[in-house]
C-alpha cells in the first residue's frame, strides 16, 4: 500500500511532465541538437557521396581560405544582407507610418497592410514565378513590354543585374515584417500624445521625429537584428530566382554551403561552410539576446 502510494507520488511528479514534453524534446534533439553535433564533426571530414567518415583535420577550412570564389561569395552575402535589410527597414517604416499615422482610417490602413502581406503568405515558388515573368528576357516579360513602349530593345535584366533582382524580391517580403511590427508599435502610442502635440502646433515632421521615431526605436533594433540573422542563413528565394547565378554573381554563403553539399556532394566541405555560418549567426543571436533579454525577444513591439 505504502509502496504503491510512493509510486503514484513519483508518477504524479515526473509522469506528466515527461509524457507531455517527451515528443517535443525528442524532436528538437534529433533535428536540432544532433545536427549541430554532426555538422561540427562533419566539418573535419571529407565526406562525399560515398558517405565515409574520413577525418582530414583542418583542411576544409584551409580550402575555404584558398577557395577562388569565397571572397566574391562573402562580398555577395554582405551586399545582399545590407541592401535587403535597408529595404526591409525603410520600406517597412514608411508603410507603417503611412498606414497608421498619415491615414487615419483604420479600414484603409488594414487593407493596405493586408495586401502587403500577400508576398509573405504566397508560396515561395509562386512569388518567384511572378518575378521571373516580370524580368523575362523575351518580349513577353513585363519589363521588356514596358521598354518596347518607349522603343527600347528588350533587355536581359535578370542576367545583367541579378543581385538587384534578388534584393528587390527579398526586400518586398521582408518589408511586410517590418511594417507589422512598426505599425503595432506606432499604434500603441497613447492617442493623447498626438493630440497634445497637435494642440501645441507641432508639425508632422516634428511629430515623427520626436514622438514616433523614439517609440519605434526598440522595434527598429529588433527588426534589424532579427532580419540580419534570417537573411544570413536563408537562401530559398535566391535558389528559386537565380540559383546563385549567373556564375557566382548571386551566390551567398548559405547557398554556397547548400550547393557544395547537395550539388557537388562535398558534404564535408559544405558542413565546414555551414559551421562558419552557424557561428556567425550565433554571434548575432548572442548580441540579440544581450540587447533584448529573454522576455523582450518575444514581446518585440512593446514600447520602452
Amino acid at each position, binding site marked *: 500500500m505504502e509502496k504503491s502510494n510512493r509510486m503514484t507520488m513519483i508518477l504524479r511528479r515526473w509522469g506528466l511532465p515527461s509524457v507531455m514534453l517527451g515528443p517535443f524534446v525528442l*524532436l528538437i534533439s534529433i533535428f536540432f541538437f544532433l545536427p549541430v553535433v*554532426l555538422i561540427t564533426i562533419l566539418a573535419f571530414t571529407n565526406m562525399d557521396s560515398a558517405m565515409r567518415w574520413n577525418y582530414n583535420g583542418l583542411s576544409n577550412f584551409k580550402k575555404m581560405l584558398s577557395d577562388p570564389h569565397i571572397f566574391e561569395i562573402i562580398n555577395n552575402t554582405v551586399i545582399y544582407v545590407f541592401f535587403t535589410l535597408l529595404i526591409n527597414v525603410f520600406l517597412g517604416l514608411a508603410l507603417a507610418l503611412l498606414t497608421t499615422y498619415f491615414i487615419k482610417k483604420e479600414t484603409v490602413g488594414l487593407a493596405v497592410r493586408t495586401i502587403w*502581406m500577400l508576398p509573405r503568405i504566397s508560396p515561395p515558388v509562386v512569388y518567384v514565378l511572378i518575378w521571373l515573368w516580370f524580368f523575362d528576357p523575351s518580349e513577353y516579360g513585363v519589363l521588356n513590354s514596358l521598354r518596347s513602349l518607349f522603343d527600347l530593345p528588350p533587355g536581359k535584366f535578370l542576367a545583367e543585374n541579378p543581385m538587384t533582382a534578388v534584393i528587390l524580391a527579398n526586400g518586398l517580403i521582408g518589408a511586410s515584417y517590418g511594417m507589422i511590427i512598426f505599425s503595432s508599435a506606432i499604434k500603441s502610442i497613447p492617442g493623447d500624445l498626438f493630440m497634445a502635440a497637435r494642440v501645441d502646433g507641432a508639425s508632422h515632421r516634428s511629430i515623427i521625429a520626436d514622438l514616433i521615431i523614439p517609440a519605434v526605436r526598440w522595434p527598429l533594433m529588433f527588426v534589424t537584428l532579427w532580419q540580419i540573422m534570417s537573411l544570413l542563413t536563408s537562401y530559398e528565394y535566391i535558389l528559386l530566382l537565380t540559383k546563385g547565378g549567373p556564375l557566382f554573381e548571386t551566390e551567398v554563403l548559405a547557398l554556397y554551403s547548400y550547393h557544395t553539399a547537395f550539388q557537388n556532394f562535398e558534404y564535408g566541405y559544405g558542413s565546414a561552410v555551414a559551421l562558419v555560418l552557424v557561428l556567425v549567426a550565433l554571434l548575432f543571436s548572442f548580441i540579440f539576446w544581450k540587447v533584448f533579454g529573454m522576455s523582450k525577444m518575444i514581446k518585440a513591439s512593446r514600447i520602452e
Partner: protein
Amino acid sequence: MSTQKRRLPSIAAYGVLGIVTLPIILMYIWLLLNSFAQKMKYGVIPVEFTLENWKFIWSDVVINGSALPSIWTATFNSLLFAGTLTVLEVVIGIMAGYALSRLNFPGRQGLLKTTMMLHAFPSVALLIAVYYILNFLGLFDSLSGVILVKTALQIPMTAWIIKGFFDDVSWDVEWAGLIDGCNRFKVWYTIVIPLIKPGIAAVSIFSFLSGWSEFLLLYTFILSDENITLAAYLQKLMSNPNMIDYGLLSAVSLFYMVPVLLFFVLTQQSLMQISTGGGKRV
C-alpha cells in the same frame, strides 16, 4: 486654412501608398488574367478568353514527350504533408506548451531558454546533417521524413506561442476544477483546452499554410515522382527551359494558391497577430 494644410499630407499619403501598393495588386491580378487568356498583349493585356491553360486539371501535362505526374497526386501529397504537419504540430505543441507554462519540473528554466534560443537558430544551415540523419533513419525521399523535419524545425516557435496562450488562462480556473475533484488531466482536457481554442485555430492555420507553401525541404529531400507536391510540381514546370508557358504556369499557381487565399481572406487578422510574434520562415 489649418485643416486644409493638415489634409494635404493625407492626400499625398494616399497617393504614395497607392503607387507602391499597386504593383503587388497587379502581380496577382496578372496571375488571374493570364490563366484565362490565350496570350498576353505587351505581356500584360489579356486577349481571347480560353480554358486551355486549366487543362492540367483533367489531363496530365506533357513536356518533351514525357508526362508530369497528375496534378491530383501532387495535390493529395501536399494535403497529406500540410495536414499531418498541422496535426503533429498542434498536438505536440499543446502538450509541450502546457508543460512549459504550468508544470513544475526540474530543468524548466533551462528548457524555456533552449526553446527561446532555437527560434533564432539558423536551422536551414543544418540541412546537410539532417540529410545524413534522414538517410540513417531510412526516411530520405519519403514524405513522412520531411514532415518530421518540418515539424521539428517549427515546434519551438509553435510550443512557445501555445505556451503564451496557456499563460493567459487564469490559475483560478484550473484550481476550481481541481477542487471540484477533477484530476489534472481532466482539468486540462475539459476546462483549459476549450479556453484556448481560438489560439489553437490560429496556430493550426499557420502551420497548415506553412506546410502547404514549403519548398526547400521538399525540393532537397524528395526525389521520386510519386511523392511530388504542388510546390515541386510548379517548380518542375518553371525550370523547364524548353517550355515557358506563362498561361499554364499562372493557372497552376492559382490552383496551388487557392487554400492560401481562402485562409488569408478569412483569417488575416489572427494571422497578422501571429506574424507579429516573429515568424521566421524555415
